[in-house]
């Protein structure tokens, strides 16, 4: 059996991890740590967590509504038992060392007791001036929470504006106002720190050429998001600020403040602006009107992420977004109309053109604030030349100070998926410094044993929360309660003041015990936020948690109908009747839990796979590392140097050595996976291994797929036909191994995007621009007189790699852009190579005699491997043959099947450093499952009545997740471990043989009975 | 000679045969069909009489065939297997033959879906190949389908249709071979506009020596207008009208289009004459019978041989 160190050690006291910054990265890192049973303190200087993402409208590339995407994560962070959330809190100083930091933090006064505040909004209603508003444009939204799903779900007061605290206190029925709140300082003992403070967006009002902030209809990308957002100032109606009219022509200007050399500019690329501009343009046409003209002015279109090139193609081909390769110098406003004219030049036109737009969006990029630099100083970590936290080429989340890790934009500009990956990697690293809090009791143990109520007739208790005036101020709770007593099965009905307060809950618990109640209806606010609280209450009462029904009297009755109190009263009664009838048909449900197997299967022994294996093995998990080839290393073994000049060979040697010699890692080379069975937490995978293809089986709880991609070698431009035509990978080796052969070269031509961004391999290979510039600079080092031409479509040196691009240009490397309808030609003249290319700047064809032609061929998906494995493991793939993650935005490392994680170039093209990051991230995500002894699969699963089943296959075909199957007995079976609980099968079943637990037909029909009952 | 058929005799003489067709009326007046046929007298060797063409009810083809026979024009009695079972078909063959109708064409017929009786049962007791077999069996063995002997069997010259342009193309020669194997004597093809494709088909036919076993009459239909060309191209199943034909029709003024259509038909005949295995022409001038003599004349197919 498995032998490894027991991962559960005794609680050793102050072993928490401090996460600084509650944006998406910080939340992800904190959640990962908490799920891995580490204690976490998450601090944020703002009054609600969520960061930048909560202000966005929709996110690329799925164009989903962000609020929908983010809300499960936010409420999750509110719930985590091991997570302590400290909003409005900043770091004062850090002492000590890794494993034992003493961090002094300061909490700013909120003037509101978060525990008492019910987020009723009464304060905001009466004194809108005294609360903090949504940032951005003129805010007319009647809320002072930053967004409706705010965490914590509480308000905050801007004390500087408050003139009368007494008045404020009188408004607050919950008594949550704390006028004498003040700054509080405390010292936290933590083992490690994750820094995730993000960045801020460049303020373009310093740019006089773009109006200096004076033009009403010139907005930043973020402001434009707010205008489009359903929760934004215009409530989701796209209008321009000057006259509230729908714009007909909108322009985006890229790289505002980025990639520049001017006074206000930063030299690096912000990495996200091309995509967000495309997204905003698409959403503009998709959601508002497809006749709104959208134009984007850009220098290079940098859509280098997973599937982003397809997104670009869609923007142009399907949505008709107009791309103009030009960097306009200025915007001129017509002061009468507010219209804006832009004068610009393009390569292929002789004269400047002027166009008039209704709105101009400035795509501004990321900056590091002075505040953040000060924080870095307090933390004692080094920053790079641009003010971002400095990390190592092969240690992407480690700062210069041991024990302090970093993720997100404060490390380098990046988008949300990359932030999520880096956050999981940082959590993996930070969690490795602190043991699992073994003393923490299993959740189950704190609750009383469950009473079997199946034989009892319903004895229902109805408890109606007054929620201050929020419910009680609109309807008569007394009257409602009196009516409720008459409902059949109702034993007790009473008003309970603030239902969610500790007092009320213990009162309900007493009533349940005293009256022997077996079902409870709570009339209060939304079950979305409060169901769990009352479910826990039920469990403390010894009742099944599914025997409570939360009737949404506040959010769906007294709030929207506050001006029709009579109608609200009537509706409240009907809702309570529906609740009581429904709950009387509620069934006690068991949640499905399975013991976790704590072994790990890592498929693929390249950079990503080895990094995953090492993180987990270091923490005592048994890891099986399966590699198809005879040796570990993968594609990275062929690379000698990174763009930054680091020695890849030395890193790989060390990585392979550590992996091969690790006690907890069993390396299985020359091995292929042949079969697979099981369910989340308990999988069995069969493989054939070694030169004799010996068959063996591995039992494991999680699987990490790091099968890599292929180095592409398309037979183009005489590759494989002429010895002087080679790939960047070939050249990289030759520069390192045989510099003499490079020295004598006089003219070298590089061609970019060979076999990438083409039908068949539609996406960008991401690494080729960097490889080309790396090799070009290295050749220049060897022979400064060499003429190097780089023929490109867009140069995509995102982030700080822009520095090298600039250097390459400075050192005389010539960059010539080509279009796909006029590609370069490589000809064999008999005594050498000749490259023909059209130069759009010179406006004529060039013939370049080349000693070498170097093709940037990038990656191709390992289609065969991903196809085989996706069939075996029931995983999904993208159109171009990479594995497809569960959620491209928020879960880039998780796969759709629970317990499967994804790392490295099997996910999408990546640099070595990015593969390391995702390798560690996958380990971190895997650890969050591995550290629980059991895996909870919930109760809302579909169940089949085999007697009724006609084995018609309709459920098998209808299930969006392919869960049902016809079993050996000949009827449909749904594995509760795999069921997502959507209920589609139940609604489709022609034999009514399937019920979705928690939403059974009789339960739903009982609610209808409740609504129409009293008239029967 | 297997039969008394004038068409058989013309073909046997080695001359290029010419047939045309006329549709029987949708009523009882016999003169209509006679008038139409009269236009063709002396210009063609036989006239096909269609059988509930496009699945619309018309005077029965055997009755109309007899009307032609009465005025001395040789009919090709068409029979589809859609409307009758084998009892009725054999009865009609005997009946027609007893009135001197000695040439027939075996078809499966258009599906009722296309006509004005889509609600009718479609019988298809036999298909066209099986009908050829049945007629040949009546003639050569003197037996009914049920196996009993016929008292004085009918001696029909048996034809069938072939469409070289339908899909799958590779099957089209084999399909002809099958009809040949069933015993068919002559073939009238679907109207030909794509001569290259037809030539490819004929190559296949000759390669297998089928042209020596069956007489192939190439189908010709002059187009009245560019609209008709487009309609045939896009709407008529199994019809292959190349773009350049449509363009050519569109390229002339509307009033000149009929003339151009006839020109194309004549040019086609000229080219088809040169093809090995083409033993004649079946000129179907739909509702435009009066133009058949002009085509026959311009194509140099006159005079018709005296038999």
């Amino acid at each position: 059996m498995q032998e490894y160190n027991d991962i559960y050690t005794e609680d050793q006291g102050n072993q928490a991890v401090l996460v600084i910054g509650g944006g998406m990265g910080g939340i992800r890192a904190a959640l990962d740590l908490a799920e891995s049973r580490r204690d976490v303190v998450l601090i944020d200087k703002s009054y609600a967590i969520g960061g930048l993402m909560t202000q966005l409208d929709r996110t690329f590339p799925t164009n989903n509504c962000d609020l929908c995407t983010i809300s499960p994560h936010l409420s999750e962070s509110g719930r985590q038992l091991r997570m302590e959330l400290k909003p409005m809190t900043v770091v004062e100083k850090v002492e000590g060392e890794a494993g034992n930091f003493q961090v002094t933090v300061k909490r700013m006064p909120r003037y509101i007791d978060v525990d008492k505040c019910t987020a009723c909004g009464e304060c905001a209603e009466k004194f809108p001036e005294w609360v903090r508003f949504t940032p951005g444009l003129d805010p007319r939204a009647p809320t002072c929470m930053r967004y409706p799903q705010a965490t914590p779900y509480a308000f905050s007061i801007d004390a500087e504006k408050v003139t009368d605290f007494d008045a404020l206190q009188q408004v607050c029925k919950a008594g949550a106002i704390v006028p004498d709140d003040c700054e509080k300082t405390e010292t936290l003992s933590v083992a490690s720190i994750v820094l995730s403070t993000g960045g801020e967006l460049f303020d373009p009002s310093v740019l006089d050429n773009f109006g200096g902030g004076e033009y009403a209809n010139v907005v930043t990308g973020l402001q434009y998001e707010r205008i489009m957002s359903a929760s934004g100032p215009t409530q989701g109606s796209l209008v321009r600020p000057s006259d509230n009219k729908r714009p007909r022509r909108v322009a985006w200007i890229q790289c505002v403040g980025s990639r520049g050399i001017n006074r206000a500019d930063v030299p690096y690329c912000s990495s996200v602006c091309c995509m967000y501009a495309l997204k905003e343009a698409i959403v503009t046409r998709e959601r508002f009107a497809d006749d709104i003209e959208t134009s984007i002015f850009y220098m290079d279109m940098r859509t280098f992420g997973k599937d982003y090139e397809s997104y670009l193609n869609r923007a142009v081909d399907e949505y008709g977004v107009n791309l103009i390769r030009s960097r306009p110098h200025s915007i001129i406003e017509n002061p009468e109309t507010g219209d804006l004219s832009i004068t610009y030049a393009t390569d292929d036109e002789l004269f400047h053109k002027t166009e008039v737009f209704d709105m101009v969006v400035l795509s501004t990029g990321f900056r590091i604030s002075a505040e953040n630099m000060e924080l870095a100083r307090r933390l004692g970590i080094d920053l790079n030349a641009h003010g971002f936290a400095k990390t190592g080429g092969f240690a992407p989340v480690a700062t210069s100070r041991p024990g302090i890790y970093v993720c997100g934009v404060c490390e380098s500009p990046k988008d949300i998926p990359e932030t999520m990956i880096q956050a999981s990697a940082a959590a993996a690293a930070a969690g490795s410094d602190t043991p699992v809090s073994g003393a923490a009791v299993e959740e189950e143990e704190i609750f009383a044993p469950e009473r079997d109520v199946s034989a009892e007739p319903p004895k229902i208790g109805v408890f109606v929360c007054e929620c201050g005036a929020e419910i009680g101020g609109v309807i008569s709770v007394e009257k409602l309660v009196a009516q409720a007593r008459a409902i059949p099965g109702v034993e007790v009905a009473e008003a309970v003041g603030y239902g969610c307060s500790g007092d009320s809950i213990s009162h309900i618990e007493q009533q349940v015990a005293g009256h022997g109640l077996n079902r409870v209806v709570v009339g209060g606010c939304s079950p979305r936020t409060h169901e769990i609280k009352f479910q826990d209450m039920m469990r403390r009462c010894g009742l099944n948690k599914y025997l409570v029904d939360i009737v949404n009297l506040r959010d769906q009755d007294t709030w929207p109908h506050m001006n029709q109190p009579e109608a609200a009263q009537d509706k409240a009664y009907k809702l309570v009747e529906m609740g009581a009838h429904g709950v009387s048909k509620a069934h006690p449900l068991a949640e499905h839990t399975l013991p976790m197997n704590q072994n790990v299967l890592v498929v693929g022994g390249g950079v990503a796979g080895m990094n995953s294996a090492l993180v987990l093995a270091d923490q005592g998990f048994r890891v099986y590392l399966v590699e198809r080839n005879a040796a570990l290393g993968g594609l990275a073994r062929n690379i000698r140097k990174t763009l930054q000049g680091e020695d890849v060979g030395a890193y790989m040697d060390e990585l392979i050595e550590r992996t091969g010699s690790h006690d907890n890692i069993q390396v299985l080379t020359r091995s292929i996976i042949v079969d697979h069975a099981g369910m989340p937490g308990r999988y069995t995978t069969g493989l054939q291994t070694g030169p004799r293809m010996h068959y063996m089986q591995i039992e494991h709880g999680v699987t990490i797929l790091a099968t890599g991609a292929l180095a592409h070698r398309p037979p183009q431009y005489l590759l494989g036909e002429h010895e002087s035509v080679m790939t960047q990978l070939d050249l990289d080796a030759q520069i390192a191994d045989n510099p003499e052969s490079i020295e004598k070269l006089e003219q070298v031509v590089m061609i970019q995007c060979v076999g990438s961004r083409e039908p068949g391999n539609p996406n960008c290979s991401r690494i080729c621009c960097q490889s080309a510039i790396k090799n070009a600079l290295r050749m220049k080092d060897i022979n400064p007189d060499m003429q190097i031409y780089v023929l490109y479509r867009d140069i995509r040196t995102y982030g700080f790699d822009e520095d090298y691009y600039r250097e390459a240009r400075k050192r005389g490397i010539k960059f010539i852009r080509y279009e796909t309808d006029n590609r370069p030609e490589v000809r064999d003249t008999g005594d050498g190579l000749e490259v023909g290319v059209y130069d759009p700047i010179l406006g004529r064809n060039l013939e370049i005699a080349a000693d070498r032609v170097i093709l940037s061929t990038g990656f191709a998906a390992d289609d065969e491997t991903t196809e085989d494995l996706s069939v075996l493991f029931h995983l999904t793939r993208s159109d171009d043959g990479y594995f497809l993650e569960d959620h491209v935005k928020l879960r880039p490392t998780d796969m759709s099947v629970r317990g499967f994680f994804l790392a490295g170039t099997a996910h999408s093209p990546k640099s070595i450093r990015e593969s390391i990051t995702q390798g560690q991230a996958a380990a971190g995500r895997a650890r969050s499952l591995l550290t629980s002894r059991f895996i909870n699969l919930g109760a809302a699963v579909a169940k089949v009545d085999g007697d009724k089943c006609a084995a018609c296959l309709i459920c098998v075909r209808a299930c969006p997740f392919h869960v049902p199957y016809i079993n050996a007995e000949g009827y449909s079976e749904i594995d509760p471990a795999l069921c997502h609980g959507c209920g589609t099968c139940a609604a489709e079943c022609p034999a009514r043989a399937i019920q979705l637990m928690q939403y059974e037909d009789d339960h739903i029909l009982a609610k209808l009975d409740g609504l129409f009952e009293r008239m029967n | 000679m297997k039969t008394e058929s004038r068409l058989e005799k013309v073909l046997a003489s080695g001359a290029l045969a010419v047939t045309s067709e006329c549709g029987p009326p949708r009523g009882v007046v016999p003169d209509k069909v006679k008038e139409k046929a009269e236009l063709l007298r002396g210009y063609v060797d036989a006239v096909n009489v269609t059988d509930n063409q496009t699945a619309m009810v018309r005077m029965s083809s055997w009755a109309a065939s007899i009307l032609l026979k009465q005025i001395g024009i040789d009919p090709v009695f068409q029979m589809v297997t859609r409307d009758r079972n084998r009892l009725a078909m054999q009865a009609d063959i005997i009946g027609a033959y007893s009135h001197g109708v000695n040439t027939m064409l075996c078809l499966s017929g258009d599906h009722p879906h296309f006509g004005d009786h889509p609600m009718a049962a479609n019988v298809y007791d036999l298909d066209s190949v099986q009908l050829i077999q049945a007629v040949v069996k009546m003639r050569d063995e003197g037996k009914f389908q049920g196996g009993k002997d016929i008292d004085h069997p009918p001696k029909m010259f048996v034809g069938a249709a072939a469409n070289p342009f339908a899909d799958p193309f590779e099957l089209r020669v084999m399909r002809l071979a099958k009809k040949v194997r069933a015993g068919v004597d002559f073939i009238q093809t679907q109207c030909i506009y794509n001569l290259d494709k037809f030539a490819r088909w004929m190559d296949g036919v000759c390669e297998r020596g089928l042209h020596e076993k069956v007489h192939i009459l190439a189908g010709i239909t002059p187009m009245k207008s560019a609209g008709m060309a487009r309609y045939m191209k896009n709407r008529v199943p199994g019809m292959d009208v190349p773009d350049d034909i449509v363009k050519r029709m569109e390229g002339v003024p509307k009033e000149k289009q009929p003339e151009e259509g006839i020109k194309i038909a004549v040019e086609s005949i000229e080219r088809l004459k040169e093809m090995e295995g083409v033993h004649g022409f079946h000129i179907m001038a739909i509702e435009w019978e009066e133009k058949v003599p002009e085509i026959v004349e311009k194509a140099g197919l006159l005079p018709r041989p005296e038999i």
Partner: protein
Amino acid sequence: MTKAFEPEIVAFCCHYCAYTAADMAGSKRLSYPANVKIIRVPCTGKVDPIHIMKALHKGADGVYVAGCLEGDCHFKTGNIRAAHRVRRVQALLEEIGWDSRRVEMITMSAGMGERFAQTAREFTEKIRELGPSPVSRAGQEAGRQAVS
């Protein structure tokens, strides 16, 4: 004494989008008619045609199913299936002589509190114009003659 007809309307709302949007409408104090009573389902893909028919049969004057925007369903295609089923129920209602406008499919995202309120208003107004359903409980309560 008879009182004015107030239609009884059942809205089957999916947890992730429409139900959340309803909460948001509430938190923004956006007014919509109290006639609308929500039944929460995990996904509109769970809404069975029988649930819709039974709601009408038991006395609802109108029923609508509110799910995520197309492409946003948390269970991939539940909202699309729900839309098909609503169309089927509409056809069945026509066949039995009921007004099919009593049933509708509506989509929205979680952030669209305004849309929730607006569609609730529009639907209620439409049902009010149609009058009590043939078996309307509310209609009977209002003591009026059933029409349509």
